């Protein structure tokens, strides 16, 4: 079968999209998990501040999430726009 250049470019974009979202999901998952772990530890040490600790945890996790969202955006761009 004859493979055209455009076909190869498309295949590469799809492979890139899969790898971007797949590998990009590793870091935020681990990082946010560590944050949640330490938040639980902090509540264990000082239960009176549970609300404040949970809030801080969520803000920190939102920042850690950003790279995962970048990966998602790039993956969708590769799938639909490029």
């Amino acid at each position, binding site marked *: *079968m004859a*493979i055209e250049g455009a*076909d*190869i470019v*498309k*295949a*590469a974009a*799809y*492979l890139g*999209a*899969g*790898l971007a*979202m*797949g*590998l*990009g*999901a*590793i*870091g*935020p*998952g*681990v*990082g*946010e*998990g*560590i*944050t*949640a*772990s*330490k*938040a*639980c*530890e902090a*509540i*264990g*040490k000082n*239960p009176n501040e*549970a609300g404040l*600790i*949970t809030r801080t*945890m*969520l803000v920190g*996790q*939102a920042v850690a*999430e950003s790279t*995962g*969202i970048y*990966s*998602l955006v790039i*993956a*969708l761009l590769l*799938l639909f726009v490029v």
Partner: protein
Amino acid sequence: MEFATHTWIQAAAYSSAGIAIGFGAIGAAIGEGHTASCATLAVARNPGKAGEILKTMLVGQAIAESSSIFALVIAMLLLFSNFSAESYLTVATVFSAGLCMGLGAIGSGIGSGFSAGAACTGIARQPAYSSRVMTNMLIGSAVCQTPAIFSLVTSFILLFTNFSARPVSPTWAALLGAGLSTGLAAIGPGLGGGYVAEASCEGGARNPLTTPSVINVMLLGQAVTQTTAIYGFLVSCILMFKSFPATDSIAVPILLLSSGLCMGFGAIGPGIGVGVSGQGAVRWIARNPNAAADITRTMLIGMATAQSTGIYALVVALVMIFVM
């Protein structure tokens, strides 16, 4: 040079057997080594309980070993089965089955080892409650093995289903993607479940009165840890059982292969992260049982956030399969 289909299939089966047991041996060995190191320290701490600690170590190691025994079973099947030579798709299924089981055994082996190690340490610290610690370890380690069992099931489906009626392109890529999805997705949840079980064995020994609530939260945490492994298994099942129309393009097969890679890699991080947060929660519920409700709530919120990138990966994989 032209070779018969049978030759390629045999060559693929032999190399895949090597991949299966090669990768599959990594996890259990590390896990059991960790257990043995904890057991050695535990005997130094409490030599009077050496017999009990040795017994716990061996039981824990036996559970950790099961994931690599699954890999051994698949390797043996690949070595000695007669595969149908009707279609080149069998080359893809044997490779995929070996990769799936080999990669899938890594996380569970290491994870079960963590839980067994903490149980040995715990028995040295609190010998009067050794049977409780042992029960805790058995439950925790057993749950750690689930991702490896998903991989085993996927490998069996790949090896024993007859795909020869399907078009070679793009089915070869879908089948390879299916193996990679479950295999890679099993690494994180296996490891994460081990972290949670480790904290539970440690906590039950540190504060034996909290054992029931610690085990409850451990099971809750481990259940959430498994979700990304289930996503991986789901994507595999779709890739294996959906039939894709024949195509000449190279883009379609690569699309299906990368949907498997996307879900597989994407499940690693959330699995580990959710496990780490469960570990922190269980550990501190054992130390401060009065804060159990607050800790459990924060743990679940934190886990939901850590899970989000796994859900993105699932969505992207499903878009690749169904929308593109």
